[in-house]
């Protein structure tokens, strides 16, 4: 294709997006659009998969059968989210194995929040309440993103995430209505997860790359700082309801702006974790890589069996 033709296609493409039409896998799309989507969707998929680990850590120790069942269901949902999102990536011509390879080699990222350890049961509450809460704020706008498979995946994901968030809040509520030990456990979890949750909304706008292009493609509709403000404004009253204290001495209501002012985020910590030096980065990758390597013989067997079965069918057909 000539540059002229490509430019023409690009204009038609951008116009479709501007008209809020969905782009489907078989449609023509600029290479950068394809790559950006693979990057973002796979990063999201990886986050779901790695995110199973900190919660999976409490399945065997959940304090009641009801909670054990809910946690199992939640982790199962996350695996399901990973599955849709990898499938959405596959529509753009990249295989799941390639994406795993990127994850395992450290080339692809996943949400840094999952590099913190889950040290008490209350962390199951805090993750649902705060981490899923922040995730929803990130993801709700994506239900209207331009790429069809991603938008449709996000509709389903957001529905389930919001169920998870309510469940997480309910875990916290139960703790906060419980014994002193339970209240302490809840407060401690909030203390540990609050700042990492704020960081989940991404670096400050000044340091954020990709933003302008992503806005155009509706991969992003609000800036990181706006999303963060939204998260804080939504979460502070919930903490009050729980009777918990947000671990930020600078947090206060700004009557004039109608929002909460908040303290300085430790961006050094953020970048340290992003770069692989958080408390659990190594462990998470070790767990994933081990699962993958120890599972190789199983996947090989499944493939060999499918081939044999196919061959037998063919033979019978002849």
């Amino acid at each position, binding site marked *: 294709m000539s540059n002229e033709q490509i430019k023409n296609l690009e204009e038609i493409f951008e116009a479709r997006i501007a008209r809020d039409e969905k782009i489907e896998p078989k449609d023509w799309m600029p290479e950068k659009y394809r790559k950006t989507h693979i990057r973002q969707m796979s990063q999201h998929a990886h986050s779901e998969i790695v995110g199973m680990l900190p919660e999976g850590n409490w*399945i065997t120790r959940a304090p009641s059968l009801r909670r054990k069942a809910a946690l199992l269901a939640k982790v199962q949902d996350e695996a399901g989210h990973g599955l849709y999102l990898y499938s959405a990536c596959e529509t753009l011509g990249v295989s799941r194995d390639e994406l795993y390879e990127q994850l395992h080699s450290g080339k692809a990222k996943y949400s840094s929040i999952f590099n913190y350890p889950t040290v008490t049961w209350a962390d199951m509450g805090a993750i649902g309440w705060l981490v899923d809460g922040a995730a929803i704020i990130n993801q709700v706008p994506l239900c209207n993103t331009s790429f069809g498979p991603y938008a449709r995946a996000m509709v389903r994901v957001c529905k389930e995430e919001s169920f998870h968030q309510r469940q997480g809040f309910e875990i916290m509520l139960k703790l906060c209505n419980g014994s002193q030990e339970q209240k302490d456990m809840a407060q401690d979890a909030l203390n540990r997860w609050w700042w990492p949750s704020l960081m989940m909304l991404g670096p400050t706008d000044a340091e954020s790359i990709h933003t302008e292009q992503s806005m155009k493609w509706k991969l992003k509709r609000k800036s990181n700082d706006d999303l963060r403000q939204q998260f804080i404004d939504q979460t502070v009253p919930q903490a009050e309801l729980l009777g918990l204290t947000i671990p930020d001495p600078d947090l206060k209501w700004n009557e004039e702006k109608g929002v909460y002012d908040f303290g300085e985020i430790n961006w050094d910590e953020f970048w340290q974790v992003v770069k692989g030096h958080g408390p659990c980065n190594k462990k998470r990758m070790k767990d994933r890589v081990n699962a993958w390597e120890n599972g190789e013989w199983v996947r090989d067997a499944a493939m060999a069996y499918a081939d044999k079965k196919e061959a037998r069918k063919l033979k019978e057909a002849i």
Partner: protein
Amino acid sequence: MKNNNLYNYIISIADNSLILAQRLGELCGHGPTLETDIAGTNISLDLIGQTRNYYQYAAKIQGEGKTEDDLAFLRLEREYKNVLLVEQPNDHFGFVMGRQYLFDVFHLLFMTEMLNSKDETLAAIAKKGIKEVSYHKRFSGDWVKRLGDGTEESNAKMQEAIDDLWVYTDELFDLTEADKAMIADGIGVDTSKLKELYYAEISELLKEANLTVPEGKYFTRGGKKGIHSEHMGYILSDLQYMQRTYPNMEW
């Protein structure tokens, strides 16, 4: 307790599902594919669901005001009555699927019979459970076939698992005093009658899967009497951790 035998009968069924669910729960996020992780949590979830129904009923029969969680989390090791099979470790995926299949075939035969129980609650649990357990068996059976009839390596691993786990199968058919009493009352399932069907079905699938049916005449038993393998203590120390550390709280 008026209905001691019924209580004991239910507990031992419930414990099978609980401990197997617990074993599957250890695996989450560590399996060979995303699809097997999803299926594994799903099966675990079904089993926990059954467990809850059983314990709720058992607690009611016991009549001491205990909850499902008291029964699940606050008994001593010797008071758990699950068969040894379900507590065996997740050594590798062949063990996970082998253990599951060897249990699922029994479980479906068992539930199918329990449909006819004179006890309405048990019959109702069976009615709901049969669908779930049919799916479990299809899933685990398919994997036994894939691994048995896959590669040379997978065949060897699947055979190893079947050989090791085989010694725990016979216990599934042991009849305790509670079992006998419940059979006599038309409530319990006479599992001794299921034994032939069980081994026939399993042998057929194993052969189809290119696996050798073990010939061992010696079987290991003990779980139904509360004498567990050395794995059980570690399963319980995790399972009970929260309830033991924070007694008498709600979660």
